[in-house]
């Protein structure tokens, strides 16, 4: 029997208008991976933030090594040997990787006033060598891609040599190979007796990594099972309280759909080379590829967020110039960024404001004043359609759970009524139930005649949703497959190897 590291007993927490946790209990043993699952807003992150000293519980106790403790600050949590990988990336973009990792723990020189930068970079280097990370510690975090930032978060959490590590959706932004690498690290940590609380919406991962699984629903514990004899479907129904449909493939589309968007020879200085494809009305075109393959770059180039070096874009046969996202939106191209915190949401504004923001024009009266009643109506409609879990449409979006924030971003673009919608990782950090809702939403939108691009790192999701699948590798389009001809293996082959002769046009 291993020593018990953490014991959470009857913890409750209420935010204004929301009971986030009620009477939750949980234990974590040394060398154990304890998975915590539940729908968006179930309270997972809140529980973890209590352990990390960011929130304090209203009721209940937390014991570390059998002793009841008060964790009243992030530093107190660090001192107790607890470290956390935050769900929402919480790095400082203007600082370097090394500075971010060791922030608050810098070794000092010169009467304790100065930071020993050489030491900082050396320690980061050592840490990265040990973890097998190929990042330059002196690079600014702001210059990294989301997935790379996620890697930095992970490295930061591991750098504490903590005995208790909380991972709040660490794999949300990672590709499969990176996820496997992380699992390797988790294995090492377990052998050294570290206890890990692991939160994820990718339930398939749990079998590979977890020892026990605890399910939260609406802030309460539904149950704890041993991962070995857990049945995924059982876990899912515990999470959502109902049965879900299984996976399917989309039915094939009629061949004579008109082309809505055509991209020819798109190139950028940094990455993209001669990307050409077309997108038809009523179709969902999936974009698959490894991290850094250039999928997000394609989306950003199309919607004018990045400068292009060459290439033409045609909308319904007409050549258009898109030099900014505002241009794109005017032309009816909507882009849902993969990084909702940076590009997708005004976190300090309420839900209604965010949903209506890009479409405020249609919510003003003759005098040019905003019609609040209409704004509220629109906001309520989308909160309902997408089942956004929020106490009210007046709630500030920064207080929503991660998955619900994502839904607000989607609602925002739905309200805008675009012809072409580009979804970049639309289900990242979203629970199974909500995923289903978003899938059927995407399908409905396509059926209504919208043309949809869906970028996703989860192959099963691409296979399930996309009518055709564009595969990218190193900035080139290496294949466009019909769903019927695609499987995980074919996609991976195209994603990892360049087809001789360069890109394949669609």
């Amino acid at each position, binding site marked *: 029997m291993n020593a018990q590291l953490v014991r959470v007993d009857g913890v409750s927490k209420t935010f204004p208008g929301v009971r986030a946790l009620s009477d939750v209990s949980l234990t974590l043993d040394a060398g154990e991976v304890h998975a915590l699952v539940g729908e968006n807003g179930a309270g997972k992150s809140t529980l973890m933030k209590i352990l990390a000293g960011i929130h304090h519980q209203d009721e209940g106790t937390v014991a570390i090594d059998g002793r009841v403790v008060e964790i009243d600050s992030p530093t107190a949590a660090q001192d107790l040997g607890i470290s956390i990988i935050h769900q929402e990336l919480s790095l400082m973009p203007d600082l370097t990787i090394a500075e971010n990792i060791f922030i608050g*723990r810098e070794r000092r020189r010169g009467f304790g006033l100065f930071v020993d930068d050489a030491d900082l970079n050396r320690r980061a280097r050592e840490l990265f060598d040990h973890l097998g990370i190929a990042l330059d510690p002196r690079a600014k975090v702001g210059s990294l891609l989301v997935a790379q930032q996620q890697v930095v978060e992970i490295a930061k959490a591991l750098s504490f040599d903590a005995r208790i590590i909380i991972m709040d959706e660490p794999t949300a932004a990672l590709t499969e190979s990176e996820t496997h690498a992380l699992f390797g690290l988790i294995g090492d940590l377990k052998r050294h007796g570290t206890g890990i609380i692991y939160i994820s919406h990718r339930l398939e991962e749990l079998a590979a990594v977890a020892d026990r699984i605890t399910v939260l629903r609406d802030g309460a514990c539904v149950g704890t099972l041993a991962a070995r004899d857990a049945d995924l479907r059982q876990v899912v129904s515990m999470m959502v309280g109902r049965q879900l449909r299984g996976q399917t493939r989309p039915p094939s589309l009629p061949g004579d759909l008109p082309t809505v968007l055509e991209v020819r020879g798109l190139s950028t200085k940094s990455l993209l080379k001669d990307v050409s494809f077309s997108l038809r009305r009523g179709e969902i075109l999936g974009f698959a590829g*490894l*991290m850094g393959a250039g999928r997000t770059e394609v989306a950003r180039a199309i919607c004018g967020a990045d400068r292009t070096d060459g290439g033409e874009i045609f909308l319904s046969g007409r050549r258009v110039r898109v030099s900014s996202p505002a241009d794109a939106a005017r032309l009816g191209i909507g882009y849902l960024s993969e990084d909702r915190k940076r590009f997708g949401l005004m976190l300090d504004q309420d839900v209604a404001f965010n949903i209506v923001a890009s479409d405020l024009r249609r919510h003003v009266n003759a005098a040019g004043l905003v019609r609040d009643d209409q704004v509220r109506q629109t906001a309520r409609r989308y909160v309902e359609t997408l089942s956004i879990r929020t106490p009210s449409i007046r709630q500030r979006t920064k207080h929503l759970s991660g998955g619900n924030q994502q839904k607000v971003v989607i609602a925002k673009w739905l309200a805008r009524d675009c012809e072409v919608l580009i979804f970049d990782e639309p289900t990242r950090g979203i629970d199974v139930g909500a995923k289903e809702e978003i899938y059927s939403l995407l399908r409905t939108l396509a059926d209504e005649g919208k043309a949809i691009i869906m970028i996703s790192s989860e192959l099963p999701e691409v296979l399930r949703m996309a009518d055709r699948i564009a595969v990218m590798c190193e900035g080139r389009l290496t294949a466009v497959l019909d769903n019927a001809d695609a499987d995980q293996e074919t996609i991976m082959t195209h994603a990892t190897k360049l087809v001789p002769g360069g890109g394949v046009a669609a």
Partner: protein
Amino acid sequence: MRDVDATGPAPASEALTAPEHVRTTRVGVLRRQLQQFLAFASLIALILFFSIADDNFLTWSNITGILLSTAVIGILALGTTFVIVSGGIELSLGTGMTLAAVMTGVFLTNLGWPLLLGVVAGILSGAAMGLINGLNIAVLRIPPFIATLAMMLIAQGLALVISGTAPIYFTDVPGFTDISQGELIPGVDLPNAVLILFALTALGAIVLRKSLLGRYAFAIGSNEEAADISGIDVRRWKILIYTLSGVFMGIAGVVLAARLNSAQPALGLGYELQAIAAVVIGGTSLQGGKGSIVGTLIGALIVGTVTNGLRIMSIPQEWQTVIIGLVILVAVYTDNLRRGRDG
């Protein structure tokens, strides 16, 4: 990029990420150097322009004149760079400096304290105002704009009340004017005020780039919430940052008083905006998280050079102000261009 086997489990040593970063770093370093270079190049261009436009511009006495008139704004700008990097703003610089000058006058002239003690006490009165700003902002959570706006008014009023609205002269304090007007380096015709500006620049650059305080200013300005959950005592460091700015405010007050041989209670309002202008022209972002001390010095020199050059060319004072305003627009716009649209 290597081929990665994405189906089988990879060993822990398998790279957690693709090696794209190498490019980004080098670009980052280049960019930073370019920023300094651009500001410096525009300074040189300005100097060239004015020296062609007017023969009297590039004379030693005019250059020291520019440096001397830049000193006060420059010192204020150095201190407030820390505040702006941390995502804050400081509006009480100008009148705070005046109050510090008046207090120095009270200590030295009215109370007859020894020179060193009086000067230190004068600087500390600046620090005290900074400390109060810091407490209001960090502890009472009053937004920096409002807290320092209030301090601006309070300092302005107090300077008038304490001095009885009349200037305090330092004629009876031997050696006081040497602080600004003396020439420490024998044989070189360079006023001490300028040496103080350069010394503080060097010190400030080290503190901003290398010290814990500087590092945390960047961290807080970059993402305050992240800094907080990383275990940084954000409150404490904010208080220190504003206090540091207050110290610079105090020094600027002493330097100004020593240059004028008097504390002028009605002077000072408007200096804060020129100082902020210098910081912004120097490439520091008002959003926080980005900035440099050397940039600020160059920014202050640009403001000083433009003012001086226009005056030599006999362009009226009113127009000088208009042109400084345009310089700010041009500087920030070119900075944006350089950063690209997503900066």
